[in-house]
């Protein structure tokens, strides 16, 4: 501070050499800014400004700081304004000058939206973390500070940022997209944090609704990231798969639930009544739109005949009014309303004509051909009116209705010159691309349609999803940073495992004869099955009537009565089901020198012996294996289901296991627990065999998956399911103890002894 002179009690700095001409702007700002700080902090602030000016970041950063920090001091707190300087210089070093320059302004915006200094410090910490972990994304976030914080609290903002970092992993490009809101995930989690109702919140109940009302179980997927703005997205049915937007913007709370429900009820009506596809033929886009609209009205009319209550559900979304400009989209919305709302009056001749044609008693409502006839007629009328229709911008109204793409058979049209079909064809093309399995639509179409048909009309005999060979289930994941579960975060996909040689399993048993014999002996003693009810007890919860009578008889005969007059029940038989979950991540391919084979091979050997013990004991058991390839693709393989025999088939599947990918343990365990929870035995046990720390390709933060797994184990134990872990990595105690609790972990140090240890461990554990 030797360079400073004193003016009154304030420190005065000379003009900064670094700033040059910019001093003209910088120094007056400092003069002004002084006023905003209390006496004891003025010097600190001024010094901070000058440090920034002399740090070599250029002129703009110190000027921005000198301009906005005094306002921040007034709005929020002088200390906060001064503390900001370190974040500004951090941003200048780690990110770039643009971000650092924007930071003071963004901080002021944040402070304006924040209620308290605590809120503000949450914002500041979040930005700081972002500077460290995803510097490229700092600028997009700062630019949107005001917009974001006008919707989210700073805590929610932090959760949204963390969700972004978690879901994008190391991918810088995706991070930038996420934080610039150019990513569907971003919008989804933003809505989630804002408390908006998103589809995933309702997924379960809406699926039940569809099943209950229409007895349909079509696969429902969230609409993948699309180029169209969210407000223009509609439900879409393609090849029997229902794609649904994550949110309907503008619909909140109750309303949001209603529009999703209305949408799915409409989908149900299509799937039930729109049995045949319309051939596109030579129809003009406006005719296509009209035929679709009338088909919508037709299926809804049929649906309302059966379920009158659906009218109450659908009508509120028809908000078209009989006034306003006669633009085609508006007329279409009016017609849509006229066809379903009996109390709606429209003076427009074209709308009236449409309604009369539709309501003509001679129509056969069950025949879609009427839609084509009326649609073509009405389309011609519009053509004569020279009304303009732009199929590229046309969006179906009301928003609960689907885009009707599924109604049309596009024949050979896709991919060729047809441009005038606009949005329909384009959207169709998009969908073709989205679906990699659909590479030759012409050949496969019929076959696929049939398959899909079978999928939807869930047969009564089908117990649940388990019947399908590959199913995907979404699970939440726990984030220790936010202390909450993020819903539907991971996706566990069940793949059908490869077959191996079942003889291999039998050979394992043969080579371990002495071990098998020892297991046999142990099983004999473990297999105690006594009657549950014990009579003639000295204590018990109920009287043993027969013993009582004998006692009274003895008394009458003048003898000493037997005091054992109670009965009690005790469970002495084994009542236990076990699910063995094998970690088959890539690291299980490592060689174990002592055994001259791989970790996975030892896992298989151990499981073979264990399965032998379990089947001899008649314990209901299942075997499954898992590995993971990012949060969207956690592989789960069923080797043996509960209730299935342990036969050649499951042995072949066990023998066929191959080590690959990573270890997202929590998601796999959630899936396993879901299955165990349906078991009706007294004790339920998940026995997990793993060789390494939970990890996945899209997770940098090692603690994250450990904490998630720990959470899963805890919630399972609340359901009365026990978990036991066999660790195969020396030194794995650290995280395994954290996840499973010390008493539920055994780490096997000499891996070659695993096949021997595992069945013994099991017998001891379950004795």
């Amino acid at each position, binding site marked *: 501070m030797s360079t400073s002179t004193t003016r009154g009690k304030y420190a005065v700095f000379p003009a900064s050499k670094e700033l040059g001409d910019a001093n003209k702007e910088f120094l007056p700002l400092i003069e002004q800014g002084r006023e905003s700080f209390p006496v004891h902090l003025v010097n600190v602030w001024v010094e901070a400004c000058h440090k920034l000016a002399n740090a070599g970041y250029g002129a703009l950063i110190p000027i921005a700081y000198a301009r906005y920090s005094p306002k921040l001091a007034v709005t929020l707190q002088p200390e906060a304004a001064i503390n900001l300087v370190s974040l500004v210089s951090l941003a200048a070093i780690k990110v770039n000058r643009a971000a650092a320059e924007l930071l003071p302004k963004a901080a002021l915006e944040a402070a304006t939206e924040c209620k308290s200094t605590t809120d503000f410090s949450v914002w500041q910490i979040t930005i700081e973390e972002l500077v460290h972990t995803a510097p490229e994304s700092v600028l997009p976030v700062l630019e949107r500070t005001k917009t974001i914080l006008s919707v989210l609290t700073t805590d929610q903002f932090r959760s949204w940022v963390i969700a972004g970092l978690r879901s994008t992993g190391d991918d810088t490009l995706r991070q930038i997209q996420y934080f610039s809101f150019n990513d569907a995930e971003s919008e989804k989690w933003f809505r989630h944090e804002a408390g908006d109702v998103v589809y995933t919140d309702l997924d*379960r109940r809406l699926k039940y609704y569809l099943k*209950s009302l229409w007895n349909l179980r079509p696969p429902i997927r969230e609409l993948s990231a699309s180029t169209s703005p969210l407000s223009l997205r509609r439900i879409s049915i393609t090849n029997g798969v229902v794609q649904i937007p994550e949110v309907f913007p503008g619909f909140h709370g109750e309303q949001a639930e209603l529009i999703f429900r209305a949408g799915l009820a409409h989908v149900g009506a299509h799937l039930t009544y729109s049995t045949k596809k319309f051939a596109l033929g030579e129809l003009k886009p406006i005719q296509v739109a009209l035929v679709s609209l009338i088909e919508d009205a037709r299926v809804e009319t049929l649906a309302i005949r059966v379920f009158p*209550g659906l009218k109450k559900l659908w009508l509120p979304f028809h908000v078209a009014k009989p006034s306003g400009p006669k633009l085609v989209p508006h007329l279409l919305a009016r017609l849509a309303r006229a066809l379903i709302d009996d109390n709606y009056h429209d003076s427009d001749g074209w709308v009236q004509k449409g309604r009369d044609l539709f309501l003509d008693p001679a129509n056969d409502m069950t025949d879609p051909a009427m839609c084509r006839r009326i649609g073509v007629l009405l389309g011609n009328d519009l053509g004569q009116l020279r009304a303009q229709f732009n199929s590229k911008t046309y969006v179906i109204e009301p928003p609960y209705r689907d885009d009707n793409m599924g109604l049309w058979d596009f024949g050979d049209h896709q991919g060729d010159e047809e441009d005038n079909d606009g949005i329909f064809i384009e959207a169709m093309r998009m969908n073709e691309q989205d679906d990699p399995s659909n590479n030759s639509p012409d050949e496969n179409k019929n076959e696929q349609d049939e398959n899909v048909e079978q999928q939807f009309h869930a047969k009564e005999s089908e117990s649940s999803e388990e019947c399908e060979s590959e199913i995907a289930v979404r699970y939440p994941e726990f984030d220790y940073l936010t202390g909450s579960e993020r819903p539907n975060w991971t996706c566990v996909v069940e793949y059908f495992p490869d077959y191996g040689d079942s003889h291999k399993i039998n050979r394992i048993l043969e080579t371990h004869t002495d071990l098998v014999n020892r297991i046999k002996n142990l099983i004999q003693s473990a297999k105690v099955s006594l009657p549950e009810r014990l009579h003639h007890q000295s204590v018990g919860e109920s009287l043993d009537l027969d013993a009582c009578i004998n006692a009274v008889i003895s008394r009458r005969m003048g003898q000493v009565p037997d005091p054992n007059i109670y009965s009690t029940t005790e469970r002495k038989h084994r009542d236990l089901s076990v699910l063995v979950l094998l970690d088959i991540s890539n690291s299980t391919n490592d060689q174990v020198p002592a055994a001259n084979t791989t970790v996975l091979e030892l896992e298989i050997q151990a499981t073979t012996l264990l399965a032998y013990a379990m089947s001899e004991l008649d314990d209901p058991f299942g075997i499954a294996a898992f590995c993971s390839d990012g949060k969207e693709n956690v592989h789960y393989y069923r080797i043996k289901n509960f209730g299935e025999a342990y036969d050649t088939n499951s042995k072949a599947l066990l023998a066929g296991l191959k080590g690959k990918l990573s270890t997202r343990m929590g998601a796999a365990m959630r899936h396993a627990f879901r299955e165990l929870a349906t078991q009706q035995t007294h004790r339920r046990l998940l026995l997990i065999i793993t060789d390494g720390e939970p990890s996945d390709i899209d997770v940098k933060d090692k603690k994250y998956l450990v904490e998630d797994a720990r959470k899963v184990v805890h919630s399972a134990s609340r359901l009365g399911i026990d978990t036991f872990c066999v660790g195969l990595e020396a030194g794995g105690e650290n995280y395994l103890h954290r996840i499973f609790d010390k008493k539920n972990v055994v780490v096997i140090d000499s891996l070659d002894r695993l096949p021997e240890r595992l069945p013994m461990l099991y017998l001891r554990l379950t004795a």
Partner: protein
Amino acid sequence: MLSMDLDGYLIKDKPYYSQTHNEIALFEAAAANRMPMMLKGPTGCGKTRFVEYMAWKLKKPLITVSCHEDMTASDLVGRYLLDAEGTVWHDGPLTLAVRYGAICYLDEIVEARQDTSVVIHSLTDDRRILSLEKKNEVVKAHDDFQIVVSYNPGYQSVLKDLKESTKQRFGAIDFNYPDPELESKIIVHESGVDKKIADKLVQISERSRNLKGHGLDEGASTRMLIYAAQLITQGVPLEDACNVALVLPITDDQDVRNALNSAIAACT
């Protein structure tokens, strides 16, 4: 020739029962041969009512035992009790039916422990005897004695299933919910509600039966529909009645409740 003992077990008034297939004729044929019968079907579809109806029709007394897992063989067969003089034997419900010729109806027999249900073995083959070991007596079954059990396959699990040797002693009739038309007629009869409302209730029941295996273990039974209808005749609005009688009892899952209530709203 009926002993005075069983007069109380005779069904005086004709129970309402509406045949769904040909179960009445089948049962009559089985009863003519005193063949042990097993009635299978979901809860609340009319099994118990059917037995009552058949007992009335065949003019036989009906002794019903609801089985439970703590039931012992002596609960069925009988036991010694004390009186002022000494011990007296007291026939259990099964012995009573065997001795004096009644239909003995063991409701939900899987609920009883397997070792309990074994006592009926000697009664359900050509021996038709019941041995009272404690009393040192062998009771030969009365000519009119017939045993009927009900069995709900929905509860089937490894833990609760009949022994193979027990199962094979019975003829079985499969029951299910009646066809919509008939079910509606039954609801009208039992509750006095309008046919239109009964139809609506039947339509609603189908919504709930669609969820069987997908959130529900069992859909709404005919009995539940009758309860709902009875509430409606007391002036309860349809949606409330359905919520009370059809939704709340069968599930505690909020999502399933929500789905069911919305589906019910769609029907009305």
